[in-house]
C-alpha cells in the first residue's frame, strides 16, 4: 500500500522528484543494512543459534521460574541488540515459550518479557532496530559513539522492565517449574557465534575507519550464507526471502510518503512543540512526544516524522526520539492504535486477548523505563558529550 502511495505523492507533486530521489538516496544504505541484518539473523537461526539459546536457558534456569526470567532477559536483550528486534519477535519468542513449557513453568511472564524487550532492548546499537538505523544515518554519530551513549539508557530501560515484569507476574513466577529439564546434548553453534562476534568487531573497525558499518553486516551475512549454501542447508531463494525485499521497498516508500507529509505542513505544525535543546526537561519532552506519536501512528512513521525536526538540535535530541519510539510501543497491544485499527488483529485471530492486562503492564513499564532511560541518556551526554 505504501509503494502506490509513494507513486501518488510523486505524481501529484506533493513531493518534488528531486526531494523523493534525495530521500531514496538517503534511505538506500539504511535499507541495505537492514536487509543484511535480517539475513544474518535468519542464517543464525538455521545454524541452530536460537535453539541453543533455549537449551542454555533451560539448563541455567535449573527448575526455577524466576531464574528462567533472568535468562530470558539476558538472551532477549542481547539478541535484540545484536540481531535486531525482528529476530527476538519472530525467532526467539517461540523458543522462549517452548523452553518455559519444557520446564513446566508458566510461559506468560517469559513471553511477555520477550515481546517487551524486543522494543525496550532495541536501544543499544544502530542495528538493533530499523528506527535506530534511520536515526543513526541522520545523527552523524559513529557506530561506537552511538553505542557508548546508548549503553546506559539500554541498561536502565531493561532494569526497569525487569522490576516491573517480576512484580506484575509474581503469581505466575511463584508457581514455579516442575519438570526437570531433559538432558540435551550441548550443541554450541560455534560458527554462527564466531561470525556474529566478528560482525560486531567489524562494526567497531568500520566505524573507526569511517566506512559504513553496513559492510560489516553484509560480510557477516555473506560468510554464513556461503557456508549454508556450500553445505546445501539453504538455497539462494531462501536467503533472498530472508532479506525481505518487499519490506525494504515498503520502508523506502514510507520514507517518501512521510517526507511529503512533513514537507507539506507537518514540519511547521510539529516544529512548535518539539523542544530545541538537550537539557533534561527538553529530552524528557522529546522522548514523551516520540512515545505518544509512536503509539498513535506506529514507531516507524513516527521516527521518520521526528528526525528532520530534531536532527538540527544535535545527537542528544535524536537519541531522545529513539528512546520514545523504541520504548513507547509497549504501551499498546500491536505497538500502536493505528496498527490495531487497520489490521483488526484481535478479531483476525479469533482470540480473546486480554487488552486490559496488556495495557496495565504497559502503563507501568513504559513510563518507568522511559523516565529512567532519558535520565541515563542525559547523564551519558554529560559524561561522554553529544
Amino acid at each position: 500500500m505504501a509503494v502506490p502511495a509513494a507513486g501518488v505523492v510523486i505524481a501529484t507533486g506533493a513531493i518534488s522528484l528531486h526531494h523523493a530521489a534525495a530521500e531514496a538516496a538517503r534511505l538506500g544504505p539504511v535499507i541495505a543494512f537492514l536487509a543484511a541484518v535480517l539475513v544474518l539473523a535468519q542464517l543464525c537461526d538455521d545454524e541452530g543459534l536460537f535453539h541453543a539459546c533455549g537449551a542454555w536457558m533451560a539448563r541455567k534456569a535449573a527448575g526455577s521460574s524466576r531464574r528462567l526470567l533472568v535468562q530470558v532477559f539476558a538472551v532477549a536483550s542481547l539478541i535484540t541488540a545484536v540481531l535486531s528486534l525482528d529476530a527476538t519477535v519472530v525467532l526467539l519468542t517461540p523458543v522462549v515459550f517452548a523452553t518455559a513449557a519444557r520446564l513446566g513453568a508458566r510461559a506468560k511472564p517469559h513471553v511477555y518479557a520477550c515481546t517487551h524487550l524486543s522494543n525496550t532492548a532495541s536501544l543499544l546499537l544502530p542495528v538493533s532496530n530499523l528506527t535506530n538505523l534511520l536515526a543513526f544515518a541522520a545523527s552523524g554519530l559513529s557506530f561506537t559513539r552511538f553505542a557508548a551513549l546508548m549503553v546506559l539508557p539500554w541498561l536502565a530501560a531493561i532494569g526497569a522492565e525487569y522490576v516491573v515484569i517480576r512484580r506484575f507476574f509474581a503469581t505466575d513466577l511463584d508457581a514455579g517449574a516442575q519438570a526437570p529439564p531433559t538432558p540435551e546434548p550441548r550443541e554450541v553453534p560455534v560458527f554462527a557465534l564466531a561470525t556474529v562476534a566478528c560482525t560486531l568487531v567489524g562494526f567497531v573497525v568500520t566505524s573507526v575507519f569511517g566506512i559504513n558499518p553496513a559492510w560489516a553486516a553484509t560480510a557477516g551475512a555473506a560468510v554464513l550464507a556461503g557456508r549454508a549454501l556450500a553445505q546445501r542447508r539453504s538455497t539462494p531463494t531462501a536467503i533472498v526471502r530472508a532479506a525481505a525485499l518487499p519490506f525494504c521497498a515498503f520502508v523506502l516508500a514510507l520514507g517518501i510518503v512521510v517526507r511529503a507529509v512533513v514537507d507539506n505542513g507537518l514540519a511547521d505544525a510539529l516544529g512548535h512543540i518539539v523542544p530545541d535543546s538537550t537539557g533534561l526537561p527538553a529530552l524528557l519532552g522529546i522522548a514523551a512526544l516520540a512515545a505518544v506519536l509512536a503509539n498513535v501512528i506506529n514507531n516507524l512513521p513516527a521516527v521518520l516524522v521526528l528526525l528532520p525536526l530534531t536532527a538540527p538540535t544535535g545527537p542528544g535530541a535524536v537519541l531522545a526520539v529513539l528512546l520514545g519510539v523504541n520504548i513507547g510501543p509497549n504501551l499498546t497491544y500491536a505497538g500502536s492504535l493505528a496498527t490495531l485499527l487497520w489490521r483488526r488483529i484481535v478479531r483476525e485471530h479469533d482470540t480473546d486477548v486480554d487488552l486490559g492486562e496488556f495495557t496495565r503492564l504497559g502503563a507501568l513499564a513504559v513510563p518507568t523505563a522511559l523516565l529512567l532511560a532519558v535520565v541515563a541518556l542525559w547523564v551519558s551526554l554529560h559524561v561522554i558529550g553529544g
Partner: protein
Amino acid sequence: MTVIAWIVEGTWAACVDAARTHAPEDTDIVLLHVTGSDVPGAAHGAYAGLLGRARPERDPGTEVENLAAAAGEHLLGAAAERLGRPCTRIERRGRIEREVVAAVEGADLLILARDGDRTHLGPRSLGPASRFIVDHAPCPILLIWPEETPSTETIPPPPHHPHHR
C-alpha cells in the same frame, strides 16, 4: 459423581494427588487444562507491531499456538500418568478463568490449588485467575495448598485499636 481437577503449570501435581486421595473409587475423574489465548496473543501483537512485515507465515503467534497446544497435551498426559486411574482429559482454549468456570458447571467437585503467595495464610495465596474461579465456580470446591500448609502464625495480628485501652 464427577470430580474435576484443574491442571495448571507449576501446581498441578498436588491437585492430581488430592483427586487420588479424596475421590471415591467409582468417581469419574476429569483432568482439565486450559491453554490461555493471552500468550499466543502477545506474540501475535508483537509481530503485528512490526510495521510492513506482511508475511503471515512468519507470525510467531501461530507457532506459539501450536506449541501451547502440544504443551497442554503433554501436561495432561503427565497428570494422567501420575493419577494412575482411569480419567477423562479435557483441553480447552480461551480466557483461562472463564473457561474453567464454564467447564465445571454441573460437576460435583472442583479441585484447585492455591497459586499466589504460599508462604502466608491469607487472601494473597490466591492469584487473580484462581480468585475469579473460587468466586464464580458453580460447584463445590476443594482448595488445596500445593506444598506444605503455612502455620496459623503467618496470620498478621489483629489491628490494634487504641481506644480499647
